[in-house]
């Protein structure tokens, strides 16, 4: 039962951390450990991979001026006429977004924020930057338009753009969620924008523990809308975290019974339902729900593992082991998964293949031995690659990592516009905006990395304990067999037919995605009369 409980706690932990990411992570699979296959975020600036993160330094805090610049509030004395703005807008409508940026920046940098068309200029600049693919810069200017509201008529469009970007790209969550959506009051807005705002305000209330306020916000979100379902999902996850399994199940089932079309929400809900059913020991039903999950293969690592546990409890070891083999696929190379070895050893043990079961224990130590030693030796945890890698896979870290990569990519893209933008200072300005944001994000990464590393280390020690226990049990079983069990028995061998309704592709190291759910492990059952170990 240790394993079952652990599995559930991990699952609940996964769900809890899902509450952390913002709506943009809707594209990820929060319930599945959120981007477990995401590329590794680059180590924080100033430290090589594997090196300890530099200590927080007061001197590294961003200055007032830098923060001001981050918000795009650059004040220049030179005044530029509205014809420059008109030219920028014209270029925008002609599809010349690079030229539009140039002229609109001429206007912005040459005028005070109070200038007549300043708000419009920022809006069109944001639109142009978005079209070019500089999402972060666009977000900064949409934020200005929505926050300062010098042109209130642009607020819906700016919010709409932010909503759009937040769904499909990593973005500055502190800026948009905390500074803009959570801390601001908006007047009358379109229904869809109100849903977006209410959902995020509710989500942040839940995160901060203000559940009643959160519920109030969620009540204002339209039922049946994208954010309506997401709100329901958050409520159900909260029930799950509180261990109100029946309520949580009801909540998730309600989402699944609705006519929702968003695959990410559906798959998260399915996985949550399966987890609850598993916890309620309804393994068959849980397995059936797991099988309906249709997320991209790279987001299914936790699905495979949980499904393997379900099959283990259903005593279908062929299938359980097959699912563990699926976890060897390259897409899950970075998936922190010590639990796999526990399950592997258990399966072998249940089939009375004691030597191979012991091999699975050895395999665990072979892979995680160094990491465990680092934890015991109290050496800096981030010096161990496995621990560092696992910590960087924590959903929150992945989220920040994704944003960091976006910033890096877009900073790299800026060079391509040097010819058009260097003359009027836009290039320099954007370079600075990105540099500062990267610094800030790196700081965040460093802060969160310590916590994530500690959590990973604790998790690893927990599995080490289970492995030790298992090793002892395996030894005991070997001893029992030597002492009294019969030495021979008729083998129960599963024959593979030459042809049948099913096709058998022997696994040879090639991973076809459509096969991962269909792996079966064929091995003889060597147990005689002894009871299987539970």
């Amino acid at each position, binding site marked *: 039962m240790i394993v079952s409980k652990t599995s559930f706690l991990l699952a609940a932990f996964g769900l809890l951390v899902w509450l952390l990411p913002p709506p943009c992570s809707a*594209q990820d699979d929060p319930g599945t450990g959120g981007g477990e296959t995401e590329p590794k975020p680059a180590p924080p600036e100033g430290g090589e991979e594997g090196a300890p993160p530099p200590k927080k330094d007061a001197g590294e805090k961003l200055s007032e001026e830098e923060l001001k610049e981050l918000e795009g509030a650059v004040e220049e004395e030179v005044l530029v006429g509205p014809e420059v703005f008109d030219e920028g807008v014209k270029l925008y*409508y002609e599809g010349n977004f690079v030229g539009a940026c140039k002229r609109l920046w001429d206007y912005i940098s040459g005028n005070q924020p109070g200038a007549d068309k300043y708000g419009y200029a920022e809006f069109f600049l944001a639109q142009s930057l978005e079209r070019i693919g500089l999402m972060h810069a666009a977000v900064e200017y949409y934020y200005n338009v929505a926050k300062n509201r010098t042109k209130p008529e642009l607020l*819906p469009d700016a919010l*709409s753009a932010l909503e759009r970007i937040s769904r499909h790209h990593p973005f500055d969550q502190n800026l948009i969620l905390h500074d803009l959506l959570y801390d601001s009051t908006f007047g009358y807005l*379109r229904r869809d924008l109100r849903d977006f705002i209410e959902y995020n305000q509710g989500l942040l209330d839940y995160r901060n523990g203000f559940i009643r306020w959160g519920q109030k916000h969620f009540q204002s979100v339209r039922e049946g809308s994208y954010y309506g379902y997401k709100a329901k999902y958050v409520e159900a996850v909260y029930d799950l975290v509180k261990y109100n399994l029946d309520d949580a199940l009801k909540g998730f089932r309600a989402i699944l019974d609705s006519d929702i079309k968003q*695959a990410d929400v559906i798959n998260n809900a399915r996985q949550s339902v399966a987890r609850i059913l598993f916890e309620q020991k309804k393994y068959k039903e849980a397995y059936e729900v797991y099988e309906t999950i249709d997320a991209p293969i790279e987001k299914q690592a936790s699905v495979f593992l949980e499904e393997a546990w379900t099959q283990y409890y259903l005593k279908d070891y062929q299938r359980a082991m097959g699912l563990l083999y699926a976890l060897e696929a390259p897409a899950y190379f970075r998936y922190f998964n010590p639990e796999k070895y526990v399950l592997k050893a258990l399966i072998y043990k249940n089939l009375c293949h004691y030597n191979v079961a012991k091999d699975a224990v050895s395999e665990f130590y072979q892979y995680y031995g160094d990491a465990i030693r680092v934890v015991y030796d109290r050496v800096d945890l981030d010096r161990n690659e496995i621990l560092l890698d696992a910590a960087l896979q924590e959903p929150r870290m992945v989220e920040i990592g994704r944003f960091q990569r976006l910033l890096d990519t877009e900073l790299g893209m800026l060079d391509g516009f040097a010819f058009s933008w260097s003359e009027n200072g836009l290039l320099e300005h954007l370079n600075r905006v990105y540099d500062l944001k990267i610094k800030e994000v790196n700081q965040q990464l460093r802060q969160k990395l310590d916590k994530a590393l500690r959590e990973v280390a604790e998790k690893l020690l927990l599995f080490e304990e289970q492995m030790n226990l298992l090793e002892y049990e395996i030894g005991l079983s070997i001893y029992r067999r030597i002492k009294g069990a019969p030495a021979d028995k008729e083998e129960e061998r599963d024959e593979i037919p030459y042809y049948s309704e099913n096709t058998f592709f022997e696994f040879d190291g090639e991973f076809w*995605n459509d096969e991962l759910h269909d792996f079966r492990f064929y091995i003889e059952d060597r147990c005689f009369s002894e009871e299987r170990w539970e």
Partner: protein
Amino acid sequence: MNATRPRFGPVRAALLTAVLAFVALGATAFAEEVEEPPVKEKSAFGPIQKRLYRMDHELSFGWSYLPLDAYYKGYGLALSYTIHFDHVWAIELVRLGWTWNVDSNLKTKLIDQMPDISPAEFPAVVLFENTNVLFKMLYGKQTFLNRMVLHFELFASGGVSLVFRNPFNIHELDMENSRYELGLNLGIGCRFWIDPDWSLRVDLRDTLLLLSFNRGFDDQLPKNAAEIGISISYNL
């Protein structure tokens, strides 16, 4: 404020309002468009996460057969070197072949029965060189009676060919009747992997000889030369 800046005239104001209304409408439409994200999430992977068999630098050696000429049948050997760029594209940098030609019944009869016909009038492919682009359309596997998995790929090839034709085989060449020709290749082929390093390759290709370097475009051109090749390949 810039004193010289023209005031916001009513016409321009109306125009800007119209433009902004258009923008607002457009943005709304865009927002509605993205309101429904795709029903199925996209995967970053194709159907195969990791191929067991992939080629990099391929050296192959094998047997070739030129069956189509009415006057002779060619049996030969071919050696080729192919660079594989990725799973889809490769370039067969060079494929050198030598052919031993056996006279067909028709040729023998003609020479026997018509004394004025000289053997020199039947140039046959003796040496050839192909440079082709390979387009590897399909990669797959099949299970043989559920016991054994066979991996294979199907590809199309196209490129140019340099051909040396002579009426006689290599040991008795008649250089006066030699032809140096250029042609275009088109073909299909398949590969069966034996293990990650070794594979069996079958090529069917047709060369259309278009131009003779030493005789120009004469009545012997254009001419088809089809080849069937079976070779063993080693992945360097």
